[in-house]
């Protein structure tokens, strides 16, 4: 099963909309290709839309944190948008932190915040 998650560039922002079950291999591939794209495009921000993801467990959280950290290392900012209420509640109860990424309710708000950062 050869699946990849498309990375879209809008101005100096990279946008990833995750529309599929985020299984482990896919998440790791995404991390790799995202790093490469940040380097190639000189992106200032990376936005991951997870509004279609119904389950985020501690391992996926770790990968999201890792993506956030590496994006930050490269001088860009990472935003996770659209975390579902039930997912947020579950992460809190599990005591899992999503602390290496920024979050925003919607894509719009994330873009707004990134623009503020750049001005």
């Amino acid at each position, binding site marked *: 099963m050869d699946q990849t998650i498309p990375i879209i560039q809008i101005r100096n922002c990279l946008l990833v909309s995750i529309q599929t079950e985020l299984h482990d291999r896919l998440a790791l591939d995404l991390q790799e290709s995202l790093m490469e794209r940040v380097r190639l495009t000189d992106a200032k921000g990376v936005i991951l839309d997870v509004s279609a993801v119904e389950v985020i467990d501690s391992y996926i959280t770790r990968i999201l944190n890792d993506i956030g950290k590496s994006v930050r290392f490269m001088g860009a900012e990472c935003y996770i948008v659209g975390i579902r209420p039930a997912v947020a509640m579950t992460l809190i109860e*599990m005591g899992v932190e999503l602390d290496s990424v920024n979050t925003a309710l919607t894509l719009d708000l994330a873009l707004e915040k990134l623009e503020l950062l750049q001005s």
Partner: protein
Amino acid sequence: MKTVESEIGAILAGTISAITQRSIFNRLGPLATTPVSQLTSADRLTVMTELENSVRLFARRNSAELIASCARALGSDVPAGSGSPSSSNGAAASSSGKPAEAPAVTKRLPIEQEKDIATARLEAWSESVRIGLSKFTSVKVATAVSELARNIVFYAGKGTVELRAVRDDRGAGLQITAIDQGPGIDSKKLQEIWGGTYKSQRGMGKGLVAVKKLVDEFNLDTAPGRGTTVTCVFRGER
């Protein structure tokens, strides 16, 4: 040709996301691609029971209307659960909001590779909804199963996740049992795990702790060389 997938897909479009629809049709298996005209009444019940559970869970509004449209498209006048005795368990239980006397149905899910983790959490989710646990609890169920299945794949290689509907003096609930014959966990490592200092190479070393925090009842049975069995229960109301 009008297949179950094409007909139902047209009705659900715009209300239920494509990814969710995909998982619904995957669960239906070969029934999804069966022409509507060739469905037996037993097939229709299977399809409708699955649809009822999923639509109620995922549709933001008009779930009753959607279910009725699906039933019409499949050529059955009555939605599942209103007549035939074989459908009364799942469908009737979820429609009243509280589970009726649920039988202890067991699902046994083999876990051997990464893709089984995703399958296991979807199965756990639909089982949780079927026995009448809330949306939020069902997400927790799916997350816990994801953690346990991942531990199996990472540390033991292969194992099994079993789901049981339980009903006792503490009410209705879903019991999850994750069994493997892997290396087991020694007492030193266990101390590190519960103390929060354990860091595994691949995971966060936090899976078990996370599951314990999520569930209402938790039991861990493990020893080096004897494998690991985790049993936990989610209850309907806290």
